[in-house]
């Protein structure tokens, strides 16, 4: 074990590993923070669809010979707002419509990528991400976004909760529901867009949904729930990265597997608490 510990310490001294841990912690914090409201507003599938659809944004970037990172963020925001607009007006079922949107945008994205020979082998990177490839600029952007998310949730917390609990009562209190909801969706799409490089198209929604669900099982008060959700997002990121380094496993999937472990533990604790009551 000391040998393993030494190995982890040596790995953590490497700059790329430090950036990877910081990047995954920032993503875990942002995912947990926004995820707390995402699952209660039943937007989990929306975040999943958003993650999958970013592949289309990346493909467009490649086709236009632009850096995909620059295309990804505006694409994510515009895509999220358009989808939200459609969802508010459709007579179809939300999950069915989201399924159409995400599967078709994924399909179109892959077809577009197939036109670029040099990217045919890179699909796996896009699907599962590469947290070890996180650069200083990515970290800086994630840190700024985390501050913006925390500021937004913190300053509008009470309105956000009332809006989540009972929308007509929130409107009657003077909460600008439309503005709050739009701002939340823009932040969610930015978090998804920023995290795709590290976490990948397929796994990003796990960062938003799993820590929040685990936190819900452990919380009775809303304020605690949000803090626990963000905390579990960060803790699972660190633990997942350490497991990844220790057993030489892929980083993103290791973090998601850790989130699953924490969720199962939370479910057991919750059940035990109910039985003990």
């Amino acid at each position: 074990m000391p040998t393993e510990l030494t190995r982890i310490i040596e790995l953590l001294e490497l700059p790329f590993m430090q950036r990877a841990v910081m990047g995954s912690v920032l993503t875990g914090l942002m995912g947990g923070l926004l995820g707390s409201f995402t699952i209660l507003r039943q937007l989990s599938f929306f975040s999943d669809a958003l993650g999958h659809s970013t592949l289309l944004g990346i493909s467009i970037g490649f086709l236009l010979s632009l850096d995909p990172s620059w295309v990804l963020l505006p694409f994510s925001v515009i895509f999220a707002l358009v989808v939200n607009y459609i969802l508010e007006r459709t007579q179809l079922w939300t999950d069915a419509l989201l399924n159409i949107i995400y599967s078709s945008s994924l399909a179109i994205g892959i077809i577009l990528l197939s036109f670029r020979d040099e990217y045919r082998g890179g699909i796996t990177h896009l699907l599962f991400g590469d947290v070890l490839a996180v650069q200083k600029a990515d970290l800086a952007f994630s840190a700024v976004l985390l501050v913006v998310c925390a500021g937004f949730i913190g300053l509008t917390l009470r309105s956000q909760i009332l809006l989540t609990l009972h929308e007509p009562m929130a409107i009657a209190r003077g909460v600008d529901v439309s503005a709050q909801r739009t701002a939340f969706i823009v932040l969610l799409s930015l978090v998804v867009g920023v995290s795709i490089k590290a976490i990948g198209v397929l796994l990003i929604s796990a960062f938003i949904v799993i820590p929040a669900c685990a936190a819900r099982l452990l919380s009775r008060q809303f304020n605690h729930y949000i803090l626990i959700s963000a905390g579990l997002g960060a803790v699972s990121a660190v633990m997942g990265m350490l497991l990844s380094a220790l057993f030489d496993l892929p980083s993103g999937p290791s973090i998601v597997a850790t989130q699953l472990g924490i969720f199962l533990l939370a479910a057991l604790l919750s059940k035990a608490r109910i039985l003990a009551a």
Partner: protein
Amino acid sequence: MNDPVLVVQGLTVHRGAYAAVQDVSFTVPSGVDTAIIGPNGAGKSTLVQALLGILPHQSGEVRVLGHPLSAKGYLPPAVRQQIAYLPQNFLVDHRIPITVSELVGWGWDRVGPQLPWAGGRARRLAVRDALAKVEAWRLRDQPISSLSGGETKRVLLAYCLVRPRALLILDEAPAGLDVVAESEFYELLHQLKREQGWAILQVSHDLDMVQRSCDRVLCMNRRILCEGTPDQALAPEQLALAYGPELVRYKHSC
């Protein structure tokens, strides 16, 4: 007559292409309990939602404490603070982790950006006092989802009175309560109204309660059909206008 808290002039509200409320005018004076009655589909809930800005209105004028409500539903935050609303169905997703104290505390908060810990001790004291007044202090740490119907209504009344209000709007607030719980709810509501000096505007189907407890009655079916004291508005010929000639009210003395 007391100063009007709410003045409605020629209000028309559409639901899609359908005018659910047409050219409605009335006034709610300070400290007066006004009931809105009428058959299902008469536009009562639509009217209430338009007065709160939940629905936009197409024409007419609404003034709350002298301030105009915009067609899209904007009122200055300070005026909003003076209104409390109890909806017809307060169905909370039981998966949302919220305690009684948290819910009542949100009734105290001002609208707009604020720090999560804003209010501090003053907020905690206001929550404690409000819960004590409705005899629900013992429920303070309970999740909202674990409350009975009667307990939920008590907590919602605490949400209303946690801060001084001028106007309380209820849309069939006791819906879902049994006879005893409904009677207790109204008893508490009217006790609080006397103490707080609230003007109340409430949608109700309970004509006996309206007769017993309300000061004024608006009878509507998309338009105002009659308005007056309970004795005037609940007279058989007036009720027949709204509900049809088949409706007969029996008064009993037991």
